[in-house]
Structures are given as structure tokens and as C-alpha cells.
């Protein structure tokens, strides 16, 4: 027979779980609110055009080299691997098809977004987080300026514009990487490679390839700003928030990628 202590102990555990669930809901609410405000504030004065341009520049410049490297090497490796594998089935000539379809549909958006989450997202969390723990966010509010509008909205729109562009650049670099390998070690002619690439890609691929970075961009921006605004506990807290920001963004990117892919396949 369980005694009263047994019930009390379970009651404590249940209470703790309810407490955790409440915290989760509070975070979810804060997160959705930040997402909503980031969009709404874009349409109200002042517009902070200068801040947006500065952010777009810094996001683009900060990420361009690493996006080029990541996508370029991915294209090279994919062509190499698939070239030798597909030769077994006599399909070596169609390396271009495989490389371009996987890049445009999947790897381009996902890899570019992961790189941007690691580089730009972490930077945003660290910056807003340290402003938060040193009372700079309070100072901004005290000076009559809304920090969500000034900091989050501007970064939101900047990433949402830049990430699809970076993704397109990444896709092109990867496909070019595939070309280099096809011509140099697989004996495929450049015109043939381009023909297989152009034949393979459909409108749906381009659509999927652009919807994804668009959604991922909003995710990265909201997650990294949210982690920054909620960072507490000094420099250590900012470090933890930065790590959390990259982890949460990455997981959400993979999860949303799955959902979007499933959705696109089901409608087409």
C-alpha cells in the first residue's frame, strides 16, 4: 500500500513538471511575440533603413566566404562520390542531375542556413545578450527607443533578404564544383554537364529551394534575437545563450526542412 509520503512525492514531481511546462509555454509565448513584433514593426515608423543596410552588409560579408567554401566543397565531394558510384550502374554521365537536384532542393538551403546560424545567429545572440546584461537594452528603452524594433526587426528583415541570396550563390557554387570534378576526373564535357543540370531542375525545385531559406532565415533571426534578449547572468549567461541559440536554430532548421519537404512533395 502506498502511503501518504508516496503521494506527496509524486505530487512534487507533478508540480515540478507543471512548472517546467509553464516555463516552456512562457518561452513559446515570448518567442511568438518576438516573431510577430519583428514583422509588425517593419511597417511602422521609424524605418531604420540605415540599420537594415548595415545589417545586410554585415550578414552578407560575414557569411559569403564560408558559404562559398561550404557549398563549393560539397559540390566537389558530391560529384566525386556519386561519379564513382554511378559508374557501376553506367549512369556516370548524369552526375550533373544528382548534384544539382540535391543541392537546389536540400543541401544548398540547409547547409547555407546552418552556416549562417553558426556565424550570424551566434553573433546576434552574443551582441544582444551582452547589451542585455550590461543594461544597454534598458538604456535604449530609457532613451525612448524600442529595442525589438531597433535591433530585432532590422536583423529579421536583413537575414530574410540575405539568406535566400546566399543560398542561390551557394547552389551555383556547388553546381560549379560538380562541373570541375565532372570535367577533370569523370570525363564529362562541360556542355553535357550543363544540359543535365538544366534538364534536371524543375520549377518546383526552385520554389522549394527558395521557400526553405526564407523560412529558415526567419527562424534563425527570431531564435538568435530571443536568446539574446533573454540572456541573463553576466558573461557566462551570454556564452550559454549563444550556444543555445546555435543548437536551437540548427534543430529547427532540420525539423522545418523535413516539414517543408513533406509538404512540397505532397502538393506536387
Amino acid at each position, binding site marked *: 500500500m502506498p502511503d501518504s509520503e508516496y503521494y506527496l512525492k509524486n505530487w512534487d514531481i507533478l508540480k515540478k513538471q507543471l512548472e517546467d511546462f509553464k516555463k516552456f509555454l512562457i518561452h513559446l509565448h515570448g518567442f511568438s511575440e518576438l516573431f510577430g513584433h519583428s514583422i509588425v514593426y517593419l511597417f511602422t515608423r521609424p524605418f531604420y533603413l540605415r540599420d537594415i543596410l548595415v545589417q545586410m552588409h554585415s550578414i552578407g560579408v560575414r557569411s559569403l566566404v564560408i558559404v562559398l567554401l561550404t557549398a563549393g566543397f560539397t559540390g566537389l565531394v558530391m560529384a566525386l562520390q556519386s561519379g564513382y558510384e554511378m559508374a557501376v550502374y553506367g549512369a556516370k554521365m548524369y552526375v550533373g542531375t544528382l548534384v544539382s537536384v540535391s543541392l537546389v532542393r536540400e543541401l544548398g538551403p540547409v547547409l547555407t542556413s546552418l552556416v549562417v546560424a553558426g556565424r550570424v545567429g551566434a553573433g546576434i545572440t552574443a551582441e544582444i545578450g551582452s*547589451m542585455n546584461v550590461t*543594461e*544597454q537594452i534598458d*538604456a535604449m528603452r530609457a*532613451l*525612448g527607443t524600442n529595442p525589438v524594433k531597433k535591433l530585432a526587426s532590422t536583423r529579421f528583415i536583413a537575414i530574410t533578404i540575405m539568406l535566400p541570396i546566399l543560398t542561390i550563390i551557394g547552389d551555383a557554387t556547388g553546381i560549379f564544383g560538380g562541373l570541375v570534378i565532372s570535367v577533370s576526373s569523370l570525363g564529362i564535357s562541360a556542355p553535357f554537364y550543363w544540359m543535365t543540370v538544366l534538364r534536371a531542375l524543375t520549377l518546383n525545385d526552385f520554389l522549394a529551394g527558395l521557400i526553405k531559406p526564407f523560412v529558415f532565415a526567419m527562424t534563425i533571426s527570431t531564435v538568435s534575437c530571443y536568446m539574446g534578449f533573454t540572456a541573463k547572468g553576466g558573461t557566462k549567461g551570454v556564452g550559454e545563450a549563444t550556444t543555445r541559440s546555435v543548437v536551437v536554430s540548427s534543430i529547427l532548421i532540420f525539423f522545418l526542412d523535413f516539414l517543408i519537404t513533406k509538404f512540397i512533395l505532397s502538393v506536387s
Partner: protein
Amino acid sequence: MNKDQRYIIGFQDVHKSFEENHVLQGLNLSIFEGETLVILGRSGCGKSVTLKILLGLIYPDVGQVFVDGEEITQVPEKRMFSIRQKFGMLFQGSALFDSMKVKDNVAFALHEHTKKSEKEIIDIVKRNLEFVDLAGTEELMPSELSGGMRKRVALARAMAYQPKIMLYDEPTTGLDPITATTINALIRKTQRELGVTSIVVTHELESGFSVANRVAVISEGKIIEIGSIDEIKNSQNEFVKTFIAGPK
């Protein structure tokens, strides 16, 4: 102080807790337009929290706060941003924007809320930096300044927009006596010349007494004594007596 002056700020039975820590426990306080009120109290007694409540940076659990006749604990966030423009706040840790030059820190509110030309803004920045004895530091980054210099830049930033009410959180703590005297003189000068209402939070008695029209003492989350400097010095309250006399 003229007795029929109007109140510009009022706290009514304000309570604020951080989890188990019951910081403010029924704070009542009224401030006259144009006066300089000094709030004294031990470290951790809730002085900074009181100023942040006034700015709507922290919301009280219970109670009402009036600014210029408007109750601010219930107003929508949007309205709060305009109410905040009445205030200039010197933060305890200066809170300068580290990614901006000194001049952009000082010009922040001007860039945000006015349509002044760049030339006018440069002039105002220059005047405010001269006011705090930091002429020529416009192009420096906050990380290149000493603690005392940061405090003075923060003061220039808070005053640049010509607020009606200035809040000073420990304006002289950690400064050498000469700079401290200059800052105290500045606080008096802003009150005298611009008619600004000021609240000065401090635990340095000398500094406090040198700028105050009235003094309030906080202990255990309440104002336990408020009055003129003489009234405070002659207070019969045990805590006030010990606080004024210092340890020994």
C-alpha cells in the same frame, strides 16, 4: 520648497518581489516639480529598482506610479516609450552602447526622436560633452574611456535630449573627489538653469546632501524618513541615525 508646488511623480503602495526576495514593500513617495530629491539607502535596498519602475523598465507587482499625472503601470508599451522621453537616466554602470562612438552615444535620442540636421546634432553633442568636461572625445569608443569618463559621457547622453526629469543612479560613486564635486555642481546647475526635476540615488551622504532639496531614506522596502536635510540630520529614527552617523 514652496508647499503648493505640484507633484510630478508619485509612488503609491508599490510592491516588487524577485521570487522570494521582497524588495519593495509598500513604497510611498511624491516628488515636487523642479526639486532635487536624494534617495539614500543601503546597498541592495531597492534604489535602482525604484528608478527602473519609474521608467517602466520593471513593472511593480502591486501599486501605482504616476508621472506627470499619468498612471504608468497600466499604459500600453507604445505610450510608455513616449513617457520615457520625459526622462534622462544615468545608469549605475553607465550602460553606454559599446558599438557606438561617444558622439553617437550622446546623439542617440536626437537621432531617434528629432529631425534635427546633422550639423545641429554635432553642435548639441559638442555642447553636452563640454558641459561634462569631455570636449574632443567625440570620436572615441566607450572601451577607450576610463570609468569616470564613461559616467560623464552617460550623463551627457542622458541630458542631450533635454528631459524634464533626470534620474541619477549613483552619479559620483567610484569617482575621485574632484570629479565628484564637478558632477554634483552639474546636477545643481541643471536644476537651477533648466528647471529640471531630479532624483539622485546614492549611498554617499556628502554628495547627497550637497545637491538635495529633500532627502528620502529607504529601508526594508519603504521610505522610512523624508524631509529637508536638517530634518534628516536630526531624525529620531534609529536606522536613519545609524546611517547618518556611520558605523562606530
